């Protein structure tokens, strides 16, 4: 069952289209990540769901109820802000029970729920500190505790980990995910970091310029990018996208005979290109990454990245032969949409 639904929701800021008419279903109890580059409309989408901004058109449903014109407080959801938005003059404990005080919960209920939240997030020792006396990670946990104490079923998070260092971010990702599963929360999580999205999400909603490019599990999006944008965005490093010109890689004589009709681009993951084949290429750059190296090669006027083991080393300018197998290639048409290979009628390779 879907808990949140956007139906033809659009958001304009004057002439700027922050979100083109969008339909989106967010299932209950899942970890949904809104992913996309800066300015693609992730925050906009989240704020529309929260009710902090009103859509220019369309309807928003939460648990089957039309909440398009309801204020945030009527939507029964919690939110963790990117900058945490902790009240600087209130202690950790007072920050956490703020919402309970608004709702005039009894003193006993307040202290019970507070104690539970503090234990859950390991904040017992910090309960009397002010936010300015906390580290980034601790502040983040307080913000999370404040969101959880409301016991709302839906928790919205806008890049909550972006201010933390790499180590802490890694830890918090796991903690967040574990917490979400333990409490059965429906989380809508915003990030521009595809690695974060891939490691945390049940479902990824990939956004680009106010439009949904693809919705799917991390595996689906990784294995079957629906658009050129998805191909270029997902993966570390992402796929190489090569333009095709009348059945060959642009600027070269190397034919891609298996390309389905209408394909103008092909894409391949760096880890699925090998050395030692029949595709002539020239090395333009090489990047040492420790366990392996990333080598950039030129075929005709197009570039392709190749992942090779760390011991190997090539000078730029070196000529190599590359190989890939047909089934690892992805094809896209002139609109950037995926064109599937027709596997029923295998075409002749050479």
């Amino acid at each position, binding site marked *: 069952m879907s808990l949140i639904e956007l139906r033809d929701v659009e958001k304009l800021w004057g002439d700027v289209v922050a979100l083109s008419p969008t339909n989106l279903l967010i299932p209950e109890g899942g970890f949904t990540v809104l992913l996309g580059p800066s300015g693609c409309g992730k925050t906009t989408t989240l704020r529309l769901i929260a009710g902090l901004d009103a859509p220019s058109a369309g309807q928003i449903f939460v648990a089957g109820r039309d909440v398009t014109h309801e204020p945030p407080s009527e939507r029964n959801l919690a939110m963790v802000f990117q900058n945490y938005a902790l009240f600087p*003059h209130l202690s950790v404990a007072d920050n956490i029970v703020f919402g309970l005080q608004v709702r005039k919960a009894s003193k006993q209920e307040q202290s019970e729920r507070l104690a539970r939240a503090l234990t859950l997030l390991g904040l017992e020792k910090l309960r009397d500190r002010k936010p300015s006396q906390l580290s980034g990670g601790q502040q983040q946990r307080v913000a999370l505790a404040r969101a959880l104490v409301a016991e709302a079923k839906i928790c919205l998070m806008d890049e909550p980990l972006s201010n933390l260092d790499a180590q802490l971010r890694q830890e918090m990702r796991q903690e967040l995910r574990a917490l979400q599963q333990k409490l059965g929360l429906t989380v809508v999580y915003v990030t521009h970091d595809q690695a974060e999205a891939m490691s945390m999400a049940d479902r990824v909603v990939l956004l680009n310029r106010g439009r949904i490019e693809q919705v799917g599990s991390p595996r689906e999006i990784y294995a079957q990018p629906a658009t050129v944008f998805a191909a270029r965005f997902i993966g570390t490093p992402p796929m190489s996208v090569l333009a095709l010109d009348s059945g060959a890689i642009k600027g070269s004589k190397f034919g891609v005979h298996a390309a389905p009709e209408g394909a103008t681009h092909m894409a391949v993951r760096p880890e699925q290109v090998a050395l030692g084949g029949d595709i002539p290429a020239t090395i333009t750059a090489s990047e040492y990454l420790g366990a392996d190296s990333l080598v950039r090669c030129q075929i005709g006027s197009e570039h392709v990245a190749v992942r090779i083991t760390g011991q190997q080393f090539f000078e730029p300018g070196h000529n190599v032969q590359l190989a890939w197998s047909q089934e690892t290639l992805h094809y896209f048409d002139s609109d950037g949409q995926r064109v599937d290979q027709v596997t029923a009628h295998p075409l002749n390779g050479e």
Partner: protein
Amino acid sequence: MLLPALVLLVAFTHYPAVATIIDSFMSTPKPNRPSVFVGLDNYASMVEDPIFWQALRNNLWFALATIPLSIGLALSMALWVNGRMAGRGFLRMAYFTPTVLPMIAVANIWLFFYTPTYGLLEQIGGLFGLPSQNWLGDKATALASITVVAVWKEAGFFMIFYLAALQGISPSLREAAAIEGAGRWFFFRRVLWPLLMPTTIFVSVNAVINAFRMVDHVVVMTRGGPDNATSLLLYHLYEVGFKYWDQGYAAAITVVLLGALATVALAQFFVLDKKAHY
């Protein structure tokens, strides 16, 4: 290296203050009679001076009205302006005006509002058939009338401090509170008011000092009249010192005024400071 700073400090602040205190114990020099030590005589004549007591009473009423009214008005205006995006620039300028205008000019504008027969208030009142009223000439309304002018001027000034402080408060705090379901009043009481406390302290210390320091509008609008109904301490001081040239007595009033001001300001600072969050 400290010496130049010390010299300046002494020349411009300490020396006049000390000289005033000394003068307050001396008689006023006359062409044929040099100043002599008279002890507390000047203070004694102050206690016996009914106009001094009237000025003090006026000033207390003036302070009691201007301080809370101007701060309250400043805060409400700042909250109102801060909440509106469109035309903010224009609105802010509109409220800025009292600050930029010298008090003398302000007083002149309001003089026109208050003038009997031709004044703005008269004309508006006339439309509704209200009886004519000489706002500044009537003992019953004169003090209130100059208080209104001071409140108007002060509120515009203080609003800028509140506005600056409000602009410094992250809008996401309001949004976080909105998601928790906090209404305007709850948010104001629990979040805005405590966060504005340092500004409130600063503004209220200024309000107290200004309440005893403002004199320009009295000079322009009423000259302390009618029958000393609008004479404030500083205006009385000015009359004693520069109209009657009684320097010794003027010095004594100055000492009392400064002493009272310093006490109030310090007390305020320390008491309120404890409640402030920084």
